[in-house]
């Protein structure tokens, strides 16, 4: 047997900090729960997944990964191990869609790797071809987390490679085609080409300009002057009408839409400068502007590209790259008593079919249970953290995780017709249909263009009235137009946003668009989800009243049961006390029991106690009622025929939540809690964190509707983590997805906080304020400069040459200002 054979049963164990030891996991460096400490091993692990991944990496002789990761400052991620065989990767339908042939008979496919987090992962993945026979090469794109695999089909198959990747800790998923991602890539390439051309033009025109400027003092031979001027004009025109066309196009689009855009004054300045320069070149006198224009095009493109890269980085990192529902199902065929099961791709499942949903599996379809009973974790749809019991005739929703035993489900809807599928479709529609947010700088564009045009007319007449000739008047007007080019204004917003995004990204907060800063800096409504956002999103033992000596017994009884309550009870065994328990038995939806030294110990609900004939005294009932009033779930522990302890479990608010909400309120936010959980729990939590407005039992549709209502009154910031929040996140002004959230919520949100807690959100708000304040400052500086320069141009003090020199100076000062954005708590 190989070390890498996946263990038969692996339950992802809770990594509770409350139950953690001071020892870090050798694979992911998270705290190791005390119950998992193994005195026989040198290394300790937080879960079976991490242990298997660590052993696999060691076995392949790739332990250098850990040294590298430490050196690069990367942090590991816990591995949720699954023992699937990844058969869908060998399916003909998959091959047809994703696999391409390569020269030499090899096959190539892209897969998305879940769990890639730092540069050491790159090292590890790209070294896999040495240990996986038949894998020719693996190239990882760190930003997109997509690996391009090339393998020899005669030696291995994609499913085997996928299984090997999963064993070292990266679960592969098929890369679903995304129009948005392709568009981003095309846009990125187009910008790089433009920057390349514009940069080459700017550099060469500058060289020629040096010759011309120095020729001015040394009385250069006119033939050389003319030669250089014609060359400059040629290169300058290439720059303005080649890469610079993007501004013209932007201006025309804005004009068609009858709105103002900063591209308009830029296009105007470029056109006027180019025409005036060309006329001067042809008539052989006066200033040519091509050096300034080429530089301007280059700088503006660079600023825009920087901002775009930051957007793309965030968007790539959080894009919904794989589906939340499984891609295959176990189909049950044949008549009762003579049934066969087989794995099929999800596309082959039709309503009316019968499918089996195994334990620890995600339901692939919507349907009704035909056989069996179990409990489901439906948190992906409802946000409700407690599992729900489902028996024959009950509905099952795609995306729900089966926590108990296998059930058979009669399919009612599959694929896009399921509730989750429909939710995703709404989400896509919402994200696409969102109106582009008009930035502060763009709002200024209108008055700016009008102002400059009025001023230029004023300038002509003012110069004529001052007794200057027509030629001189036009010269001054051109100087005015060039010096007033809004490149400082146009650069300040993208640069300040790019700086803030970059700095936030290095601290784990990914921002998908610059409009986020503007929206978060203004006062507005803050809609918070409960589970996972305000709370840890995890059941833990909060109170134990009664016989404490039973703790290890309870932990041992509940060990190995996948139910969330059982898992938190099993994690309770702090001291790793070994207890001898005989005949452990788990009863679905009720609890578990075992025999200790002849005594029967049972753990479970009040119904379980009744069934076992255990007397629940009034004092115990009062205790239970008190705990329930605090929004907790109560579990009884009985020894023989009487209740020995009452355990209260709950999902408590994150530490510091109340304080963080207070600060956000001070920043002008009006908080409100909207949860899918039951109203009493929601009310209790809202009270603890100090929020007056709250609503429980809110369906995903209701959440989106409520956000819509609030949007009518002003900007709304929605915060959430589940698929059930996704529609709300997408319809809000700014949607923030929090740590550990479902992939769908990441796709819908504008911001993703990869660190837990509310502190990153607070920092984001501070950063937004600092960024918008800095943009405003840049705009004021650039505006003052433009007004002063315009006044000097009108009075004839600025010659076109001086204008050409002054323009980059103003840009440089604004760039320096924008790059120096700082905020409290920021790096």
């Amino acid at each position: 047997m190989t070390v890498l054979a996946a263990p038969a049963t692996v339950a992802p164990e809770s990594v509770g900090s409350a139950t953690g030891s001071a020892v870090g996991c050798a694979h992911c460096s998270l705290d190791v729960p005390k119950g998992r400490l193994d005195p026989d091993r040198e290394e300790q692990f937080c879960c079976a997944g991490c242990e298997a991944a660590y052993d696999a990496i060691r076995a392949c002789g790739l332990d250098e990964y850990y040294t590298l990761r430490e050196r690069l400052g990367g942090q590991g991620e816990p591995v949720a191990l699954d023992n699937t065989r990844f058969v869908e990767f060998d399916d003909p339908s998959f091959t047809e869609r994703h696999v391409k042939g390569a020269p030499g008979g090899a096959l190539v496919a892209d897969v998305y790797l879940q769990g890639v987090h730092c540069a050491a992962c790159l090292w590890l993945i790209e070294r896999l071809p040495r240990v996986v026979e038949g894998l020719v090469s693996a190239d990882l794109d760190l930003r997109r987390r997509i690996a391009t695999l090339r393998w020899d089909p005669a030696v291995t198959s994609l499913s085997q490679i996928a299984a090997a990747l999963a064993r070292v800790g990266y679960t592969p998923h098929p890369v679903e085609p995304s129009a948005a991602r392709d568009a981003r890539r095309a846009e990125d390439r187009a910008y790089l080409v433009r920057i390349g051309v514009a940069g080459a033009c700017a550099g060469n025109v500058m060289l020629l300009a040096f010759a011309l400027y120095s020729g001015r003092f040394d009385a250069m031979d006119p033939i050389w002057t003319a030669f250089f001027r014609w060359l400059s004009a040629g290169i300058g025109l290439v720059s303005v009408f080649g890469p610079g066309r993007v501004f013209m196009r932007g201006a025309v689009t804005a004009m068609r839409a009858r709105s103002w855009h900063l591209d308009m004054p830029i296009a105007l300045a470029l056109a006027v400068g180019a025409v005036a320069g060309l006329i001067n070149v042809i008539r052989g006198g006066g200033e040519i502007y091509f050096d300034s224009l080429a530089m301007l095009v280059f700088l503006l493109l660079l600023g825009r590209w920087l901002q775009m890269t930051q957007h793309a980085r965030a968007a790539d990192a959080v894009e919904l790259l794989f589906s939340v529902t499984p891609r295959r199902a176990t189909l049950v065929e044949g008549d009762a008593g003579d049934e066969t099961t087989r794995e099929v791709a999800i596309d082959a499942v039709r309503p009316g079919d019968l499918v089996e949903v195994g334990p620890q599996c995600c339901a692939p379809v919507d349907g009704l249970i035909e056989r069996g009973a179990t409990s489901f974790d439906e948190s992906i749809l409802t946000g409700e953290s407690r599992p729900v019991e489902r028996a024959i005739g009950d509905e099952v929703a795609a995306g729900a995780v089966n926590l108990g035993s296998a059930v058979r489900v009669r399919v009612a809807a599959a694929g896009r017709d399921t509730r989750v599928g429909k939710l995703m479709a709404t989400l896509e529609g919402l994200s696409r249909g969102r109106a582009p947010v008009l930035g502060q700088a763009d709002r200024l564009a209108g008055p700016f263009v009008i102002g400059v045009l009025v001023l230029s007319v004023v300038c002509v007449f003012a110069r004529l009235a001052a007794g200057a000739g027509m030629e001189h008047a036009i010269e001054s007007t051109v100087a005015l137009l060039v010096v007033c080019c809004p490149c400082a204004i146009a650069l300040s917003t993208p640069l300040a946003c790019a700086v803030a995004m970059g700095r936030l990204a290095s601290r784990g907060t990914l921002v998908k668009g610059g409009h986020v800063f503007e929206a978060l800096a203004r006062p507005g409504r803050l809609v918070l989800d409960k589970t996972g956002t305000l709370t840890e999103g995890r059941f833990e033992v909060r109170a134990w009243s009664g016989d404490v000596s039973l703790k290890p017994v309870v932990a041992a009884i509940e060990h190995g049961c996948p139910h969330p309550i059982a898992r938190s009870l099993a994690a309770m065994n702090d001291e790793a006390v070994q207890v001898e328990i005989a005949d452990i038995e788990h009863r679905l939806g009720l609890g578990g029991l075992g025999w200790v030294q002849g005594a029967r110990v049972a753990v479970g609900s009040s119904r379980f106690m009744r069934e076992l004939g255990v007397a629940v005294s009034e004092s115990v009932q009062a205790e239970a009622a008190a705990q329930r009033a605090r929004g907790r779930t109560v579990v009884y522990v009985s020894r023989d025929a009487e209740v020995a302890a009452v355990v209260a479990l709950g999902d408590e608010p994150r530490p510091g939540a109340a304080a963080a909400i207070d600060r956000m309120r001070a920043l002008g936010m009006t908080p409100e809690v909207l949860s899918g959980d039951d109203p009493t729990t929601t009310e209790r939590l809202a009270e603890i964190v100090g929020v007056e407005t709250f609503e429980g039992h809110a369906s995903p549709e209701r959440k989106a509707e409520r956000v819509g209502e609030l949007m009518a009154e002003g900007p709304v910031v929605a915060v959430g983590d589940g698929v059930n929040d996704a529609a709300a996140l997408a319809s809000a002004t700014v949607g923030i997805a929090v740590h550990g959230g479902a992939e769908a919520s990441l796709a819908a949100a504008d911001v993703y906080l990869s660190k837990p807690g509310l502190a990153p959100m607070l920092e984001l708000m501070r950063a937004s304020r600092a960024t918008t304040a800095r943009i405003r400052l840049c705009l004021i500086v650039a505006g003052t400069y433009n007004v002063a320069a315009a006044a000097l141009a009108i009075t004839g003090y600025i010659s076109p040459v001086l204008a050409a020199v002054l323009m980059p100076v103003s840009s440089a000062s604004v760039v320096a200002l924008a790059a120096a954005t700082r905020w409290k708590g920021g790096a």
Partner: protein
Amino acid sequence: MSVLFVVIPLALVIAAVAVGAFVWVVRTGQFDDLDSPPVRMLFDDDPVRPDEPARASVDGVTPRASR
């Protein structure tokens, strides 16, 4: 000095060739990933040992000799 009439256009032609090469490189996707190459070059190339035994096993990955 009249050599400039030849040299400057020549220099511009060379620059155009360089820009053309850049455009080709961008269009073939070599600039799509700007995050991985800067880290990749930091890793040492460990020598390939031809005497090493074949490491693959049933699972596609090698078992460790002892544990």
